[in-house]
């Protein structure tokens, strides 16, 4: 296929190679910089993630356990609520939707992804949290209040930041990514599989269950990992609704931290090498966790041999 080398060819190839290598370079730089940037606190070893002591501007020992707890719990809530909804949307778009509804509905889901994080936060503070506090949380308190996770709410209290709020906002924010990747996975299932199920007398939902959902398992799993990574790394929207109390409690109604919200709320005030280093190390933990979940997800997707549209959002 080649048409012979020329100097222009060589230069161009070198050019694109160099520019593309920026991606590899960036990956390495991320890890390098965040590791060296946390040199002051790396010495703490694993105590960094197991301890709750936070030195703040005066101390010199920092533990991010409450933040990790917050990240884990908010992400878990996000997945618990967001994944079923996303799967429902994916199944709708892939298997159930009449042709003319498909474009508008998928556009709406794309718009969910386009809303900036800070606008989610603003809406969260002024609209979502008051709504949930007045209309939804009382039910949890009334019917499930015996569970420790649902304690700590008093009827009629003023809306305040809480872990549950953080989880709900995250659930909404992960819908686009989880539903779009799942939908790709569902659409990649060959029609012959669906036919096999129908020919056995399956109803629509049965056919979807046995022929499509199980075939698309790894793609759906990939979408869940991507959603997890997104939820774990989301910063501003969560920071605005989750509060900033570095306290470990079991109640979902109390405020908390996530790794990301910790970093963003304290970074501007951080002084002193150790304080900054602690925040950078928190970032390193975040980087490692999200990087890992994304690698697993992309590996699973790599096994799906479908090519995606050029304009797929992310």
């Amino acid at each position, binding site marked *: *296929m*080649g*048409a012979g080398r020329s100097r222009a*060819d060589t230069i*161009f*190839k070198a*050019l*694109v*190679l160099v*520019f*593309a*290598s*920026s991606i590899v370079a*960036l*990956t390495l*730089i991320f890890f390098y*910089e965040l590791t060296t940037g946390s040199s002051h606190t790396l010495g703490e070893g694993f105590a960094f993630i197991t301890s709750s002591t936070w030195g703040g501007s005066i101390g010199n020992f920092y533990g991010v356990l409450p933040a990790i707890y917050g990240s884990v719990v908010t992400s878990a809530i996000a997945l618990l609520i967001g994944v*079923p*909804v*996303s799967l*429902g949307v994916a199944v*709708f778009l892939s298997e159930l939707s009449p042709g003319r509804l498909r474009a508008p509905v998928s556009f*709406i889901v*794309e*718009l*969910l992804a*386009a*809303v*900036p*994080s*800070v*606008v*989610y936060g*603003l*809406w969260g503070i*002024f*609209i*979502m949290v008051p709504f949930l506090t007045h209309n939804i949380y009382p039910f949890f308190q009334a019917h499930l209040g015996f569970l420790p996770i649902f304690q700590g709410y008093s009827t009629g209290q003023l809306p305040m930041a809480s872990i549950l709020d953080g989880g709900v906002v995250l659930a*909404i924010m992960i819908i686009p990514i989880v*539903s779009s990747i799942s939908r790709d996975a569902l659409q990649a299932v060959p029609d012959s599989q669906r036919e096999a199920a129908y020919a056995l007398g399956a*109803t629509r*939902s*049965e056919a979807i269950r046995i022929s499509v959902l199980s075939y698309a398992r790894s793609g759906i799993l990939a979408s869940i990992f991507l959603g997890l990574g997104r939820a774990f790394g989301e910063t*501003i929207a969560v920071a*605005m609704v989750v509060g900033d109390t570095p306290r470990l409690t079991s109640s979902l109604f109390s405020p908390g931290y996530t790794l990301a919200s910790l970093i*963003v709320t304290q*970074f*501007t005030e951080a002084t002193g090498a150790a304080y900054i280093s602690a925040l950078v190390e928190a970032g390193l933990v*975040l*980087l490692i966790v999200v*990087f890992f*979940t*994304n690698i697993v997800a*992309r590996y699973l997707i790599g096994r799906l041999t479908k*090519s*995606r*549209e*050029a*304009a797929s959002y*992310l």
Partner: protein
Amino acid sequence: MKSRRFFMDKVLISLACLSVVIAIVPLASILYYVTVRGLPAINLDFFTKLPPIPVPGAVGGLGNAIQGTLILVGLAACIGLPFGVLSGVYISEYGRNFYGRTVRFLGDVLIGNPSIVVGILGFTLLVQPLHGDNLAAGVFALSVIMIPIVSITTAEALNLVPNSIREASAALGIRKWRTSLLVVSNAKSGVATGALLATARVMGESAPLILTIGISTQWYSGPTAPLASLTYYIYYFGTSGLQNWVDLAWGAAFLLIVMIIGINLAVRLLTRGRRAYA
């Protein structure tokens, strides 16, 4: 037994349709409230005046924030787009080897990188050495967010161009580098779509800016000073508790949403009915 299966079928299908409704409700709510609370704040002052002092009733605008956002996004695009498009060209046209696949894989993974981590990188690389918030750090952070997105969308757009075009070009004796440019021009709309969407995305970024360029109550004052941005102001004013500030935050949110959704709509309309390449 049989009618139970029939019933379950109806229930499950209704649940799927219900989830679509559940997904739409927050979007509708956001668009509604942003418009209802933000539109009133949009007037000439909003575009031309500086932010008001933190005193109830003080008036002002967010002109500097609008200016700052435009400067930041514009400069970030100047770096992010060339790097992204050329990387995409590499991945698609020259990268059919292990290194190319690695670049592609890392690009996909980097897309999901938390933006706060990008902010930290901008801080350690450019803020700390220069002892203070500065423009370069902010632009750097935003471009770092753009590059993986543009690379992958470009690579995918180029992938969709049929091989017959490359072969025809080669058979005419055209050099590979010109063939690649030909492929790019055939994928114009796909590449442009990716570029526009990436730009819309960084327009809405806030966390990295908090760590790299800070916030300013003045107009653009040079590359070594903090710079105002719409997103930071939404965060700063939105969480302040002052009514006049909160109103301006809604206004900024409205403006931002209009710009971003406008870009998304334009992209959708431009590519509707066309194939994904050319």
